């Protein structure tokens, strides 16, 4: 027990957390109610059993009674549990009705699960972004012997958190582009699966501004453990300011000016860690039998134009990377061709990789 106790326990708990919504508090109360009923039943049943174990021993000279079959007793211990169950079902039903009531929401956010990140689309404004595991966790969890305690909020931090206003009923519509994921933030009180090709609904109404962390909870492949969720709940004013700022940032064109080789490689590594590392691995060696290596790959180290086309088109195994901009393409390709054991020796500038309509 003493071995690991030196760690920081930001959210160290033994019990379910109460959370920051009415629903999560109701669920907490239900949890405690049923837990205490179980503890009570446990004390009665195990109490009787252990009394018997201590007193009704042959070694103490106890002689076995031979009674058995008593219909009255049997009826009693069938009816009492049934009544207790009814008592549990009433508050449970109330909370269930509350949980499933997505009507009259103030805003809607579409949550899409991907291997292995989330993307959020605010259906009432034009905001749309991806939310990936932060780079510091990404590096540490892929390196044998690296120290997770050196990373704040290890594995529970993202590059771009989901931002919502407090005191507003936020409706979520959840789906997936590849496999089944599940979106869970314990402080909100629920998780909901994101199924490919289907849409699920859920909602929340956060009372307290703050940062709330969660994770994907449906096994979704090798990096299932590495797609966290961070929700920041803000006061309405702050939220409005965030919306304005984010919309402004989204409108900005990528900076297509030339970069030094070092800059290209450093930025390229970030793009790689966000988009490629899950499959092709941190050293570019891929996974034998499943995922091709980039190290020494003819496509990666061949003509850059064909690599560019390959990335944009995708394959049956690999998604299309049209979402990357010219800057990111230049950085990523420079990185892949001159790192991960490859030494093509070229460098690609954003202007080279820009498509005609990127220039506007």
């Amino acid at each position, binding site marked *: 027990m003493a071995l690991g*106790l030196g760690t920081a326990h930001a959210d160290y708990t033994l019990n379910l957390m109460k959370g920051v919504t009415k629903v999560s508090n109701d669920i907490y109360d239900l949890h405690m109610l049923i837990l205490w009923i179980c503890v009570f039943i446990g004390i009665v049943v195990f109490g009787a059993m252990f009394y018997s174990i201590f007193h009704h021993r042959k070694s103490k000279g106890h002689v076995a009674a031979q009674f058995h079959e008593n219909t009255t007793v049997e009826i009693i211990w069938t009816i009492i549990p049934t009544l207790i*169950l009814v008592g549990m079902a009433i508050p449970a*039903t109330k909370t269930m009705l509350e949980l499933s009531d997505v009507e009259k929401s103030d805003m809607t956010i579409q949550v899409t699960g991907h291997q292995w990140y989330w993307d959020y689309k605010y259906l009432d404004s034009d905001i749309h972004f991806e939310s990936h595991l932060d780079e510091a966790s990404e590096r540490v969890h892929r390196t044998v012997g690296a120290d997770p305690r050196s990373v704040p909020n290890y*594995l529970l931090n993202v590059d771009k958190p989901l931002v919502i206003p407090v005191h507003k009923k936020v409706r979520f519509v959840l789906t997936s582009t590849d*496999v089944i994921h599940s979106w869970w933030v314990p402080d909100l009180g*629920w998780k*909901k699966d994101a199924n490919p*090709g*289907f849409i699920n609904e859920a909602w929340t109404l956060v009372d307290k501004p703050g940062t709330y962390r969660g994770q994907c909870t449906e096994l979704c492949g090798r990096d299932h453990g590495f797609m966290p969720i961070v929700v920041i709940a803000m006061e309405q004013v702050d939220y409005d300011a965030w919306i304005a700022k984010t919309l402004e940032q989204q409108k900005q064109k990528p900076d297509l000016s030339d970069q030094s080789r070092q800059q290209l490689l450093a930025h390229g590594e970030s793009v790689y860690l966000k988009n490629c590392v899950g499959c092709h691995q941190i050293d570019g060696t891929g996974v034998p039998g*499943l995922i091709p290596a980039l190290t020494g790959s003819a496509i990666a180290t061949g003509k850059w134009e064909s690599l560019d086309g390959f990335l944009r088109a995708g394959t049956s195994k690999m998604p299309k990377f049209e979402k990357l901009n010219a800057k990111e393409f230049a950085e990523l390709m420079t990185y892949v061709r001159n790192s991960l054991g490859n030494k093509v020796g070229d460098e690609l500038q954003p202007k080279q990789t820009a498509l005609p309509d990127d220039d506007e």
Partner: protein
Amino acid sequence: MSAVVDEHDHDHHADDHHDHGPAKGLLRWVITTNHKDIGTLYLLFALTMFFVGGAMAMVIRAELFEPGLQFVDPAFFNSMTTMHALVMVFGAVMPAFVGLANWQIPLMIGAADMALPRMNNMSFWMLVAGVLLLASTLFMEGGAPNGGWTLYPPLVLQPITVGKALPFAIFSVHLLGISSIMGAINIIATIFNMRAPAMKLMDMPLFVWTWLITAFLLIAVMPVFAGAVTMLLTDKFFHTSFFNAAGGGDPVLYEHIFWFFGHPEVYIMILPTFGVASTIIPVFARKPLFGYASMVWATASIAFLSFIVWAHHMFTVGLPLAGELYFMYATMIIAVPTGVKVFNWTATMWKGAMTFETPMLFSIAFVVLFTLGGFTGLMMSIAPSDFQYHDTYFIVAHFHYTLVPASVFILMAAGYFWLPKWTGHMYNEKIGQLHFWLSVISVNVLFFPQHFLGLAGMPRRIPDYAVQFADWNMISSVGGFIFGASQLLFLYIVIDTIRGGTGEKVSDEVWEDASKHSLEWTLPSPLPYHTWTTPPVSVPTEHVLDSH
């Protein structure tokens, strides 16, 4: 006892010229149709797989000992959780209970052998083939299946997730399914047709009753699982779209089909334990089982309910409200017959004259710890609460409590209880007690902290975790290593007992007054190769109504 006619085969060798012993040499074990030999094969195979699956669990606990990446790649970690589950469910627990059934059912009902001895042999060897096929995927390009034992699509169909293993795993499931169905048919046929004429259904020992009910569950659901994985196969290789939304299918359909199999499946692993506990506890309490008839009806009710609660594994997949409520209520009801069982065991112990040999210790630990697993099961049946618990370590703790200190402990209890009868040798009680105490302490160190982890927010099936989960994971791993190592004592005891044990010659009854409870204790120890070639004329009546 007095009612049993003392006419066993060893008493009438003279007129039994076709009576013969086992075949010579190793071929005996390949071609045998003897229920005792096949029971032994099943049990030894299950014990081997218990250690194979256990080794996989050790890999999992080693990686989770500390946060960060230590030993294995995440995909291999996922293969380990997947294979650990499949090996333990289909290779260890289920075959172990079939092994017990093979040994015990004919002895307990006064039958000379199983009804279909050749099929019995075939179902064992098909099990071996199925498990070997599954194990072979560990060495294939792309590794063993790593989409979880539930094999949810689209994940298991994905070219970046699974390599060549999928069709082998599916064929393996087919073989295991056929094996289980043949085993179940055999058990049903034996129980219905081979009982001693004096034994009515309501005279049967509870172990026989629980297995009869389990066998019907197996026949009902194994084909469903076979169907589900066949649909995976055609989706993968023949361009069907059962589970692919782009082709008009639905991945959630798979979850419904899987859990229609999966929920009865988990009861297949627990109902026979009820039978064993109901056999052992009365013997060591020196009292009849408190409510024989209600135990039979409770088992049947649990089996029936198991068919209509499957979607409680799916509360968060997006069920309609009516579905959530129905499956919540239906699941909660299971607590009633399960409670009846626990109350009955307690009432059986009440005012008994108990002694605490190893089988009794494991049985008491079973009642207590299975009840703990039942409590968390009740908590999870509350759908809104399950929106928090689902797919976390709370669930892992729950089902391991119902499987390890429940199913596995009862298998251990059964081993200690019947090995002396089967071999004629007494096991070493001191080492047995040591094994029990090490197991019961370490299993709680292993699994109890996982409740805390789940409630604190740790999802299951992750190879690495946030640092606030570090302490309990470390404690859980330490418990795991001790539990794993302790089981080597059981292996030692099994081998030692077969080879002579304490050297003490056991009596026919082995345990005081055991023959009042069940027929096998009226036979000689060790058991001759053939038993009940003449059925017993009457049967013990102690466990049934006085009016009988």
